[in-house]
């Protein structure tokens, strides 16, 4: 019964099995996609040779959407239907979004969780807008790489909390992009430089993007990138630099009445043009025909306008160094990310702060996508034997609300990921069968000062006297920085059902309905879509199992176990060819359950191998000395 195709040891099953892996930098002002092509990273450009895709989507009546440069060109005439800087709204509530001020002129629809933007094409959640941008990049990649995408790495600011990361994951799901990993932007930038130089040492990444500022301290040693500390300011970016210039224009032009969104947008884009031009020139003419005003701005004036923003950024640097237990003198390399770091003032002050000139030879707009593409190539399995490993940290502490609006921290920030922590709780009343947990993220002591992530309801606790139940709640944060929660009553062994109500995210139902509405899948109905997702999942499972069996099947499994597995594989293949979703799920679950002991043995073998390598090294060292 030859069921699994097994090739000769040491030979890849298919010679052309190199997979299509992409790295996506989903930015506030612009986004990019890059891929490893013939051994070098290429940033994939559009048909006009432009690598950047402005993160702008225009929605017009009738549901027509335009993405990128074409959308941006409509921003001035139709600001209410042209969504820009959507990244700032990801995983945020209406109050946060309003706090961003005049920069976002949209009509928001007040709803629970993330607010939707009211456009001519109907309400659009920030997740749906981001999915449109991601989809445009995926289409570009599929065309240029001539085939479907096998895996993607999407970057997020290191400072993104759980809700923002989850929203990014959801957007990728809507755009039907298979995500291997969410990677922190500064880590990606360090990867881009680290591999090129093959170096070791401590690296500081200064990332001043359109809407966020991140600083990360990493150590590269023995092929492992360890994030030592990460910090920043999720509400500081190039947009704030532009706004400072815009305010200067408005005060000189003596504008006291509030401007229309169209006028304000025009002033902002002139402010940006002037700010960017001042990186090259010492003085620039400012022209605002809509205000009937013109003037001149010098580099020195610009520097005094934005100095308070630089002070904020450098304060974050100081704090992050302290968190890492280092001083500026310990830093070996400084990497610059984000277009704003082209500003001479920024380069000079960052150089002064760390006492060494920053690295700028990879385009600061592209360096993150380059690093993401490298990591995608590693994760998709194109570079077996490559030792590069990235260890990220939790950016903000996770805690739960306790009595009196106080917070009990469960996992502290800067803890290396992944992490699993358990905490025991007990009941307050006799016979209590349910309990609610409010999970928050942030550094402050009071619930109101932290970000609400989700409310978890545990049900099915066996009725006992007050204080007798021992409910062990396990918080797990995976390598992407995403939290999951499970709960178990320890005495009875009953697993509680956990229902998650994300505070600013989308619920599973909302995502499901967006998937069916989504234009990408207009033809699919809900059930077919679900079947297709399960099919994809199943073929991944089969592929993984087949390669695991090829490697370790002989040594780790008995003949009988192997036969059982093969029978489960036959059942799954049959179910995949059929149309019954319930049977497909059952067949998949059965195979997973059956292969679980094999997975455990493989992991143990991995560790034993690592140990063995160590002993041999030790021995060699001992003989030499």
């Amino acid at each position, binding site marked *: 019964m030859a069921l699994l195709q097994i090739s000769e040891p040491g030979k890849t099953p298919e010679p052309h099995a190199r997979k299509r892996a992409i790295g996506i930098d989903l930015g506030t002002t612009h986004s990019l996609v890059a891929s490893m092509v013939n051994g070098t990273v290429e940033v994939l450009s559009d048909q006009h040779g432009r690598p950047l895709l402005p993160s702008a989507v225009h929605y017009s009546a009738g549901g027509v959407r335009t993405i990128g440069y074409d959308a941006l060109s409509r921003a001035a005439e139709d600001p209410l239907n042209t969504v820009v800087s959507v990244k700032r709204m990801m995983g945020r509530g209406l109050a946060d979004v309003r706090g961003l001020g005049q920069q976002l002129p949209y009509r928001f629809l007040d709803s629970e969780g993330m607010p939707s933007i009211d456009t001519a094409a109907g309400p659009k959640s920030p997740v749906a807008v981001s999915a449109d941008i991601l989809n445009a990049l995926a289409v570009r990649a599929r065309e240029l790489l001539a085939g479907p995408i096998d*895996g993607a790495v999407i970057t997020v600011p290191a400072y993104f909390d759980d809700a923002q990361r989850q929203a990014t994951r959801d957007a990728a799901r809507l755009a039907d992009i298979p995500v*291997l*990993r969410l990677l922190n932007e500064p880590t990606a930038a360090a990867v881009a430089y680290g591999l090129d130089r093959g170096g070791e040492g401590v690296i500081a990444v200064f990332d001043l993007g359109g809407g966020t500022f991140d600083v990360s301290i990493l150590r590269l*040693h*023995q*092929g*492992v990138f*360890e994030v030592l500390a990460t910090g920043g300011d999720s509400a500081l970016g190039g947009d704030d630099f532009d706004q400072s210039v815009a305010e200067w224009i408005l005060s000189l032009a003596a504008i006291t009445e509030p401007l229309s969104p169209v006028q304000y947008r025009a002033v902002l884009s002139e402010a940006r043009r002037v700010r960017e031009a001042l990186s090259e020139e010492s003085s620039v003419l400012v022209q605002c025909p809509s205000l009937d005003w013109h003037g001149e701005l010098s580099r020195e004036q610009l520097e005094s306008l934005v100095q308070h923003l630089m002070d904020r950024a450098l*304060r974050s640097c*100081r*704090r992050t160094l*302290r968190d890492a237990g280092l001083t500026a003198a310990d830093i070996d390399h400084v990497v610059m990310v984000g277009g704003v770091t082209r500003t001479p003032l920024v380069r000079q002050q960052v150089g002064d702060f760390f006492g060494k000139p920053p690295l700028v030879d990879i385009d600061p707009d592209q360096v993150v996508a380059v690093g993401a593409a490298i990591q995608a190539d*590693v*994760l*998709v*399995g194109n570079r077996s034997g490559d*030792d590069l*490993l*990235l*260890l990220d940290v939790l950016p903000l502490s996770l805690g739960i609300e306790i009595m009196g609006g106080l917070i009990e921290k469960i996992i502290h920030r800067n*803890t*290396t*990921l*992944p*992490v*699993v922590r358990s905490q025991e709780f007990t009941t307050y009343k006799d016979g209590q069968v349910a309990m609610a947990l409010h999970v928050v993220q942030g550094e402050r002591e009071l619930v109101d000062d932290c970000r609400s992530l989700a409310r978890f309801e545990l049900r099915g606790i066996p009725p006992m006297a007050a204080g007798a139940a021992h409910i062990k709640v396990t918080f*797990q944060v*995976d*390598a992407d920085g995403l939290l999951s929660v499970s709960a178990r009553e320890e005495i009875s062994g009953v697993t509680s059902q956990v229902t998650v109500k994300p505070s600013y995210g989308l619920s599973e139902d909302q995502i499901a309905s967006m998937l069916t509405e989504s234009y990408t899948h207009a033809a699919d109905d809900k059930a077919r879509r679900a079947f297709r997702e399960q099919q994809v999942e199943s073929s*991944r*499972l089969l*592929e*993984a*199992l087949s*390669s*695991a069996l090829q490697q370790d099947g002989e040594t780790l499994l008995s003949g009988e176990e192997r036969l059982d597995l093969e029978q489960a594989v036959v059942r799954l293949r049959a179910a995949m060819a059929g149309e019954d979703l319930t049977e497909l799920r059952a067949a998949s679950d059965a195979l*997973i359950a059956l*292969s*679980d002991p*094999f*997975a*455990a043995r*493989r*992991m143990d073998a*991995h*560790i034993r*191998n*690592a*140990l063995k*390598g*160590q002993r041999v090294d030790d021995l060699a060292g001992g003989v030499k000395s």
Partner: protein
Amino acid sequence: MDTTPVYFQLLDLPVAYDIDAALLAERYRERQQAVHPDRHAGSGPGERLRAVQFSSDLNAAYQCLRYPLSRAIYLLDCAGHRASADRTVKQDMVFLQQQMHWREALADMAEADKPQQVLDRLLDECQRAVEATETSFREAYAAQDWDAAMHSVARWQFLEKFRAELDAAEERLMDG
């Protein structure tokens, strides 16, 4: 009741207070290379889940063993002795008096002419007290004098807490 020193086993190190920090870091990185979820991105769900668990355990072991105080507490824990800071320190009048003295100095620091100097002196004194406590723990642990070892750890916890307050004060001073 003794507990298995899992953290030492995970990193294949002898169960002892004094450890080779470089070796610890090297073993940690090597094992993460083998078990981290990124190394199993293309594997089945069972293996991916196990990778997250293994990798988390390794992180926990490394974080615990790399810092002297958490390592000391863990060693006592494994030997079946859970240190209770309040009980032991309350009986140590000399230590309590020194603590009070330091806390007064810290509270008055804001009015001092050169607050940084006050802070530096306190940091220095605290550091020396930590070193002395570490030495007494090391000796007590080696001699399996559990009461003395627990007493040292209790004092040590107080000292680290005070040091954290000093660091926070310094942060305010630098930011201010």
